[in-house]
């Protein structure tokens, strides 16, 4: 620590200030009207539905139905498509195959005063109506018209299966992905009739879900056995998407809601503002208390605390433009406020130790050194246990496809996936707070204190809570 230069203090302070500025303001470049975020600002925080208002709903097949994995994928595809049709793009959707649950969460749609969440959810769970139609005629709204509207060849209930498969092109030896379609005997009959008629004129068969055209293909030959292969410019993913959508139309049941929660938009914003005020007051009070109790180390702790809070916010926005931001809920904000209080713990521990060493007659330099050394084991052990708790929380209540949830699935195997977003967000801010505590409460504080103590004016032990040198 003796090697630390006087300038280090200012460097650390400037770094924290720059970090704070970047986190709040963000950096973005505008090129030809397209704004690219390089560093995200606080405006990019995604608020949880308990703040922005919104809908949280769990869909499952009706009681007694054991859906297969393919059917769950199909149901997911149907839901996604309908969400987009309802103009809802910023939804979260999770599938829990073990318990046949699909959890959908979306915020209140901005600007839509007439938005009726109950009707929207009802519509989401409806059985999709899949049709194969002749031709490819549609009106301005994209709905089938003319011969396409009149001539339904096969409906979804005649589909036995739709799966991804591939053919190897004999000429180029390349793999061509497509969708294998199998129809039941009744479906096969009408399909045979239509294809033999359309093959002559190179007619088109289009596939519709509700009133959206999801694909269309030219009929190349008559298909009499009810087994068709839809080829085209497919990748594996796009073929899978189409297969899922077709299967969704063939789902033999309607999805029912097992959990359903709606929160109005005004309720949460009031709560959020209250929490932010509380956080600000807490921050000021804690800083004043620290300075009153520990003087110089208290001032350092306050600067470090700024870094700690800014760091928490940066971890939520994602900071860099390419990192997705984390949804912040009210308990999440509470977690940040809590970490303001707990964040100074490392500073409290070391400051107490420094005080102790000074009182036992050590010099400032050795008191600082010993203070940090002795306090370290307790900071480490104490914080690590909180890390465990935060991780266990996140594993229990995170999305089922997240890393932590997978790592801990053996523990919670007996329970369905509950994405209690509120607790997950709380666990995340707690975890981030503790990790940042090592960076700011220990490392940055130590650098700042060691450097500032090199100044002559700062060499009075009284400033560190010791007794003055007479």
């Amino acid at each position, binding site marked *: 620590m003796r090697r630390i230069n006087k300038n280090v203090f200012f460097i650390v302070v400037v770094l924290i200030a720059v970090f704070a500025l970047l986190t709040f303001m963000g950096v973005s470049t505008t090129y030809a009207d397209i704004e690219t975020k390089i560093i995200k600002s606080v405006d990019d925080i995604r608020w949880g539905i308990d703040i922005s208002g919104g809908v949280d709903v769990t869909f499952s097949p009706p009681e007694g139905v054991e859906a297969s994995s393919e059917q769950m994928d199909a149901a997911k595809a149907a839901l996604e498509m309908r969400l987009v049709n309802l103009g809802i793009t910023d939804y979260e959707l999770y599938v829990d195959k073990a318990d046949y649950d699909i959890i959908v969460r979306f915020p209140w749609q901005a600007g839509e005063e007439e938005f009726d969440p109950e009707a929207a959810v009802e519509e989401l769970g409806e059985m999709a109506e899949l049709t194969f139609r002749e031709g490819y005629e549609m009106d301005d709204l994209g709905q089938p018209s003319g011969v396409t509207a009149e001539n339904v060849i096969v409906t979804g209930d005649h589909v036995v299966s739709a799966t991804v498969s591939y053919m190897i092109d004999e000429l180029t030896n390349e793999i061509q992905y497509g969708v294998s379609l199998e129809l039941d005997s009744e479906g096969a009959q009408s399909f045979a009739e239509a294809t033999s008629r359309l093959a002559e004129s190179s007619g088109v068969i289009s596939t519709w879900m509700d009133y959206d055209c999801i694909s269309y293909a030219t009929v190349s030959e008559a298909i009499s056995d009810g087994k068709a292969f839809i080829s085209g410019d497919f990748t594996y993913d796009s073929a899978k998407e189409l297969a899922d959508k077709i299967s969704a139309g063939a789902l033999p049941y309607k999805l029912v809601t097992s*959990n*359903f929660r709606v929160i109005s938009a005004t309720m949460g914003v009031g709560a959020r503002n209250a929490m932010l005020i509380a956080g600000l007051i807490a921050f000021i*009070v804690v800083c004043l208390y620290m300075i009153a109790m520990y003087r110089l180390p208290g001032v350092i702790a306050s600067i470090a605390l700024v870094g700690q809070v800014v760091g928490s916010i940066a971890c939520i926005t994602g900071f860099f433009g390419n990192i997705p931001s984390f949804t912040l809920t009210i308990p999440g904000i509470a977690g940040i406020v809590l970490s303001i*209080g*707990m964040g100074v713990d490392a500073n409290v521990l070391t400051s107490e130790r420094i005080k102790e060493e000074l009182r036992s007659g050590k010099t400032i330099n050795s008191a600082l050194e010993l203070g940090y050394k002795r306090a370290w084991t307790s900071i480490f052990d104490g914080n690590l246990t909180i890390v465990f708790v935060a991780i266990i929380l996140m594993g229990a209540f995170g999305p089922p496809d997240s890393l932590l949830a997978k790592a801990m699935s053996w523990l919670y195997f007996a*329970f369905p996936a*509950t994405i209690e977003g509120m607790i997950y967000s709380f666990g995340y801010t707690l975890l981030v707070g503790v990790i940042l505590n090592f960076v700011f409460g220990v490392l940055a504080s130590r650098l700042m204190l060691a450097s500032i103590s090199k100044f002559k004016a700062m060499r009075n032990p009284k400033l560190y809570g010791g007794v003055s040198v007479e």
Partner: protein
Amino acid sequence: MNKVYDIVGRKKYFYCFSAAIIALALILSFVLGMNVDIEFKGGTIITYSYEGAIDEDRVADIASELAGQSCRTSLGESLADGMKTVSITFPSSTGLSSEVQSSITDSLSQQLPDSKLALYSSQDVDPTTGRGFLGKCLVAVAFSAVVMIVYIGFRFKRIGGWVAGCCSVIALIHDMCFVYACFVICRFDINANFMAVLLTVLGYSINATIIIYDRIRENRRLYGSEKPLDELVNMSITQCVGRSVNTTVTTVTAMVCVCIVALVAGVESILSFAFPLVIGLLAGVYSSNCIAPTLWTVLQGAIDKKGGSKKK
């Protein structure tokens, strides 16, 4: 200046105090019953905002007729945005489908057009998911406790880590009982907030306990095992008093700010999180100073004695 607080000598008072609080919580929960939120037991709550006056019974009649089950209504006011609200609670555990909910909304706004009813919030929980959530929370707590015992057992070998670990978990259970007592006494619903508070207190209390253990470990090293356990523990706790008080002050201050703002703004969901958390934090610092280390002297003392007599 160098006064050493005699914590170990007063352990009986501490144990009595804690036992009394826990007993009180148990008695109260039997007498008053506890309000388990629908998040855990399943059920439906629909809340509407309205204007002017509203006939509560009328609302209840319309809703129960459509849902085919009895319901309870309550009026409230959200201070966050000044809306008057009416909540309809369906305690039955079958849940209401979105169709039924939507038909209730429709017919309420048709039959009571003057009230300008608008859906404010609604929550419908299937009882199996509710139980799953509760079970998951309990497993999370239990698993955390096991991790703590293992970690402390490993890191504090020098002072009989397993015993110390068990003592800290007993202190944890003690803190959770205090949090539970707070929920029962304040009549808050047992819900996700309850679990979040339990888990936070778990982390905080363990942290505080470890600070004390760390000091005991250090003093053990400095003074050897010659020093009697009681003195060792008293000394360690006294040396940590500054830290215990100051960290508690900063943490509790932060949460008290949240409490006050939540109270002023009328955000009950936050109040029922922040206030029990304050109680839990206080319980945590109390138990890690007065329960865990004193319990450790009793247990470790007994083990040492046994080992000592064997040697002879």
